[in-house]
């Protein structure tokens, strides 16, 4: 194992991370509030989170890729717990017969951005400045590791009762997701997971680099704007080179659950510069495609966010409601998600929209 020191994050930076991750959740990913409470407590007890760049990893260093898998509602009762988050990592390390050098998040959007820090608070690992979604997505095969065709096993899942499931082999990432879902449902629809371990080399070649830094940057922009009484949404756009897609108010909202996803659409009637126009925003856990007067103007995998104009708070697909004054913004996603192969997994067709991906950010790469 290499000596990985990394950059230490103080308490205010952890708050930034949570705020930025919530924006990158694109309306999904789960609110990081409970994970943040855990980290505040751990830091009061002396935990010093450290972040290392991808380049600090040796080619053969092993990295654990972690997430919480399950239903957001269940996470409101069965709260995240660092000891449980660390469990699959401990088990996989035992199973592999060698220690991990670091830990990283599966998805930087939403509460999973904080998962590796929960693990680190128990085991003392540094957290790699990377993830494999660059945002939030609903399914495990929607990762750059899956897109690159990396090995998908062993996959480890642990619950609060010391139940551990290891998927020894799975025929594909989709199979791994299916097998994992069955196990998760059985242990109460929420579980801590460690996906297939990755080497430093695989992370260098196939992870999304700088994800933690990006979330921190967005969070800092929000914090500074708040302190200065400035426009928080504009601050995010400035920090990220994002686009203001639409300003309006929510006129109608429709939700339904099909095959385990919260799907639906929000209709936003234009105000001010967009007076007279209508934005239709479709979601599947996360916001997926935006149509302005019937024509697509923004789509997955680029990141669509709905922000409350009054409070500057990002609105999840579960809480968006009639009458809210909102701004719809678009942020770029990592270039790795926009290749033809990647678009098969994370482009509009993967979410059931018969559309060719048309980027808002053709130059790409935040």
């Amino acid at each position, binding site marked *: 194992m290499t000596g990985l020191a990394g950059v230490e994050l103080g308490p205010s930076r952890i708050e930034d991370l949570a705020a930025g991750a919530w924006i990158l959740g694109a309306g999904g990913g789960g609110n990081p509030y*409970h994970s943040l*409470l*855990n980290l505040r*407590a751990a830091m009061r007890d002396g935990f010093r989170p450290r972040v290392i760049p991808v380049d600090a990893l040796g080619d053969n260093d092993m990295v654990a890729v972690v997430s919480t898998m*399950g*239903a*957001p*509602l*269940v996470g*409101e*009762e*069965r*709260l*995240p*717990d*660092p*000891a449980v988050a660390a469990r699959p990592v401990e088990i996989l390390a035992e199973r592999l017969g060698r220690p991990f050098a670091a830990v990283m998040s599966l998805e930087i959007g939403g509460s999973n951005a904080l998962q590796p820090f929960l693990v680190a608070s128990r085991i003392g690992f540094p957290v790699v400045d990377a993830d494999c979604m660059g945002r939030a997505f609903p399914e495990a095969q929607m990762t750059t590791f899956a897109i690159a065709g990396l090995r998908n096993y062993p996959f480890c899942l642990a619950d*609060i*009762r010391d139940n551990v499931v290891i998927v020894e082999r799975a025929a594909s990432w989709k199979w791994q997701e299916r097998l994992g879902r069955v196990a998760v*449902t059985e242990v*109460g*629809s929420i579980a801590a997971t460690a996906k297939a371990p990755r080497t430093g080399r695989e992370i260098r070649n196939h992870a999304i680099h700088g994800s933690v830094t990006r979330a921190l940057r967005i969070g800092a922009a929000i914090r500074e704007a708040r302190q200065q009484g400035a426009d928080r949404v504009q601050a995010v756009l400035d920090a990220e080179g994002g686009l203001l897609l639409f300003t309006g*108010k929510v*006129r*109608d909202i429709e*939700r*339904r*659950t099909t095959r*385990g*996803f*919260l799907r639906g659409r929000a209709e936003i009637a234009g105000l001010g510069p967009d007076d007279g126009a209508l934005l239709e925003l479709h979601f599947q*856990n996360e916001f997926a495609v935006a149509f302005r007067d019937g024509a697509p103007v923004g789509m997955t995998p680029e990141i669509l966010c709905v922000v409350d104009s009054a409070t500057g708070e990002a609105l999840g697909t579960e*809480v968006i*409601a*009639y*009458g*809210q*004054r909102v701004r719809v913004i678009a942020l770029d996603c990592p270039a790795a998600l926009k290749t033809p192969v990647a678009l098969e997994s994370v482009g509009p067709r993967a979410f059931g929209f018969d559309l060719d991906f048309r980027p808002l950010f053709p130059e790409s790469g935040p």
Partner: protein
Amino acid sequence: MTPSPSGPAPRSLRVGVDVGGTHTDAVLMRGRRVLREIKTATTADVTSGVATALLAVLDAVPPERAASRVVVGTTHFTNAVLTGSGLARVAAVRVGLPASASLPPFCDWPEGLRETVRGPVFQVAGGHECDGRPIAPLDEAAVRDAGRRIRETGLREVAVSAVFSPLDGSGEARAAALLREVHPRARITESRHLGRIGLLGRENAALLNASLRPLAARVAAAFRDAAEAGGAGDAPLFIARNDGTTARVEDAERFPVLSLSSGPTNSMTGAAFLSGRSGARDAVVVDVGGTTTDLGFLRSGFPREAPREVEIGGVRTLFRMPDLLSLALGGGSLVSGDGARVGPASVGFRLPEEGLVFGGSVRTATDCGVAAGRAEIGDPRRVRDLPEALIRRFGKTVRERITEAVDRMKPDARPCPLLVVGGGAFLVPRHVEGVSEVVTVPHAGVANAVGAAIARVGGEVDRVFHGTDRAEAFRRAEAEARQRALAAGADPDRLETVEREDLPLAYLPGGARRVRVRVVGDSAEGLSPRFGAGSPPAGST
């Protein structure tokens, strides 16, 4: 009891009392008519002020026509939480290990209030999964041990919570029973009686409730004494709740948090009643004060519930609180030189000295309203020189902010009435986009007391159903809500369902959906609710 031949049924007189920080108001109503109204000073002992108000409204009412009920709304509980005074220390017992172990009770409380309220904290094994299976068997020995240790500290106030108790309350109920066995003097609040899914928010509501119970007992005793002294000792005594319904006083003693925000609620329902538009059922109510404008939405005559966590004294809670929106805009708001900014700074209660129309030197929203010819207050000559451009811009600023706030409170795009109350009511334009009619409510001074007098009896169910279709889930929820309304003293012939909504839940197996149904009715007359069956509050299972 026989009806008096010359008048309506004797049990048709209702008294509403509102105990505020400075004033105690009371009204006497028969049917839809306000017969008497009185405003007195709130007294330090509470009892004498309420008794004075009751004596005044009941004066010369013949004894055979005694009031059928007295409903009191009070700000005692809110003030206690906001100031931290009068709160008791609370022991917490959470059932749910091995789940949620790292975030114990009180973990997200602000430091000051936590120091005041936090007593011993216990976490024990038990609780349920989202699909109803137990997480682990309830650790009865640990619960008993916790009860003994709480007893040894001398604490009586206890809050019990359990993981997923809104889905299956058996673990929470059993834990409470065991605690009572070993600590018979314990007063136990069970979280499922208060809140919905969301462990910390529900548990926080239970902790606050437990902390308020000694105060609630004192307040209830004061109200009983006052009713006696005020000549209403025979009338059933009710306390107004946050959701626009009433609780028997003995239930309110057990669940003071459910009466925490009855003030704004009674203000809304009272205003709707006084507007003569209470038949309209759905309306936005806007209350324009000196410094702020508060908005709420009445759905079928009841305040819509806040959809998310509500912070009380910095504590994130998740239970039935009205959905309110507050704007820093009122009659005393300062107006910028170009009229583009109104508020947030305000002269507040000093308006009668500092406003231009009163001879002062501060340009306030009231001055601009007078200059615009919207109100006749003070001396209009003193605002003659305000530039017309400023007045126009001021009008536009206020209209935009109020229009936007009203629209945010509406549930959908359909036009609905807007009811306007408060001293700054003239600031609200006569025509507001998306509003069918703007109704200014007359003599809103006693709206809170009227809201208390007319409050109804309700029963609510908010649960997740598995493996049933939508219609069946609604049917079962509705039947249960009716049972609760009846237990709370409602007249079975006059029950109506005022809320039905469901939300399909992502990821959960078996087509799970969360269903909420609320049934309300008038209190059964003749059958004094005092002698009715015990009333489980909404949310209990």
